[in-house]
């Protein structure tokens, strides 16, 4: 068996990712998270008569609390494995990454384990978010002021 045949065989044996159902799952779960957020926001605004900004803050709090709770209980990983970006792109993914980093490094101690690794996954969002926000804020100041 030469190299070409071998590569062909590898390609055949490797399980094909179900791209269509993956995308559909991500679309549905992401959409449901979005619609539930809008429903919670409407309920909060109409019942407690708070401003929209506050209501969105509460929605984020609820989502992050639930994501952290589910990750701590251990079945968020299965959900993230199944629905992939449907879970990871909304703010639940951010909470999930922080919680799972804490869970993973808890055995190495509170300072050297948890403390130094807590932003291991969420760090890229914070780093590039803050850096590019700084650059873009300067551009916006130059453009609009």
């Amino acid at each position: 068996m030469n190299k070409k045949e071998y590569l062909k065989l590898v390609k055949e044996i490797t399980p094909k990712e179900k791209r269509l159902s993956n995308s559909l799952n991500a679309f549905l779960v992401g959409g449901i998270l979005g619609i539930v957020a809008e429903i919670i926001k409407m309920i909060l605004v109409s019942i407690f008569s708070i401003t929209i900004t506050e209501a969105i803050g509460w929605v984020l709090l609820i989502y992050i609390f639930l994501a952290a709770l589910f990750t701590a209980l251990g079945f968020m990983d299965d959900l993230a494995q199944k629905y992939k970006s449907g879970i990871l792109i909304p703010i639940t993914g951010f909470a999930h990454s922080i919680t799972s980093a804490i869970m993973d490094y808890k055995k190495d101690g509170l300072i050297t384990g948890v403390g130094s690794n807590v932003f291991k996954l969420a760090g890229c969002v914070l780093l590039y978010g803050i850096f590019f926000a700084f650059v873009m804020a300067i551009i916006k100041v130059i453009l609009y002021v």
Partner: protein
Amino acid sequence: MTLIYSFLFCGLLCLIAQVIMDNTKLTPGHITSIYVVLGTILGCFNIYDNIVDFVGAGANIPIISFGNLLINSAYQGYLSDGIIGLFGNMLTDVGVGVVSAVVFAFLLSIPFKVKD
């Protein structure tokens, strides 16, 4: 009507992320970074605020909104306090997300054991 827009907008962002992830070698870390940077760019030209007005809370949930909040709070800080405001105010709007994520993650992960 905002319910439908929320569903479509949030779902579409996740769909795009999933399609990119399935067809390239990029990891979720790459995608979220790209989305945040995209959010700062959209926030720079006031596009994302218009999307939020139109779509509702469905546009506040994706990670793109994080970048938008960062740049807009920095810009508002510059308008009120000058250069120091640009640095000091950047994290005010995302404070809810970051602080609650850290607090809840720490509080909730201590009592539970890691599932094998």
